[in-house]
């Protein structure tokens, strides 16, 4: 599963993308965030304020309780400030 990071998340994690292989019991976005945070202190800090983290699955913005089933790309990013 490909994971993308944008803006201050990208800077804080010091990478823009990577590939992860979560275990079978990781079925939702929230599960994935828990699993990443438990494995790496950098994630634990970056994901500390969960409400501030937006998520897209295969270029579709989703809630944290969305199922990862079939998703090839997960993107994590802060609230958007375009325009």
């Amino acid at each position: 599963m490909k994971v993308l990071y944008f803006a201050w998340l990208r800077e804080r994690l010091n990478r823009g993308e990577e590939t992860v292989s979560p275990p079978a019991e990781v079925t939702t976005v929230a599960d994935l965030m828990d699993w990443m945070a438990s494995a790496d202190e950098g994630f634990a800090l970056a994901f500390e304020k969960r409400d501030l983290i937006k998520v897209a699955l295969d270029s579709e913005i989703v809630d944290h309780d969305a199922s990862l089933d079939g998703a090839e790309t997960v993107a994590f990013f802060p609230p958007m400030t375009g325009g």
Partner: protein
Amino acid sequence: MAVTVRLQAEPFDPGAETNAFLTDTEGMGAAVTFTGLVRSTPGDPVQSLTLEHYPDLAQKQIERFAEQAIKRFELRNIIVIHRFGRMLPGEPIVQVMALAAHRQAAFDGANFVMDWLKTDAPFWKKEETSEGQNWVEARAADDAAKEKWRK
């Protein structure tokens, strides 16, 4: 297609874009162009702005808002141009153009697309000031602005 979304690093010419948009207006009576500029004020001086974006999602989200606007307000065409990368105060960042039979539809269409784009299109602004660089925080007022479009 009645919707065109262009994401680009290069500057664009606001007036030339408006004139190009106005070449196909048959049967239409009203066009609105919104242009967003890099803002720097004496109280909050900005040396440059750098926009990061998520290309696939940005294209898709803006096309979605523009298509919703076309249906909802009965517009003929919408063009959205949004830049990414580094830009200087006064430079255009974004332009939304809406063409309709009547004026209120054109105003509402451009306004609707801008309101949704602000909070739901994946762009992030980083400001450079004399004290360093910082990510611009999302504004509650931008979330509130969308409320006016609830039916």
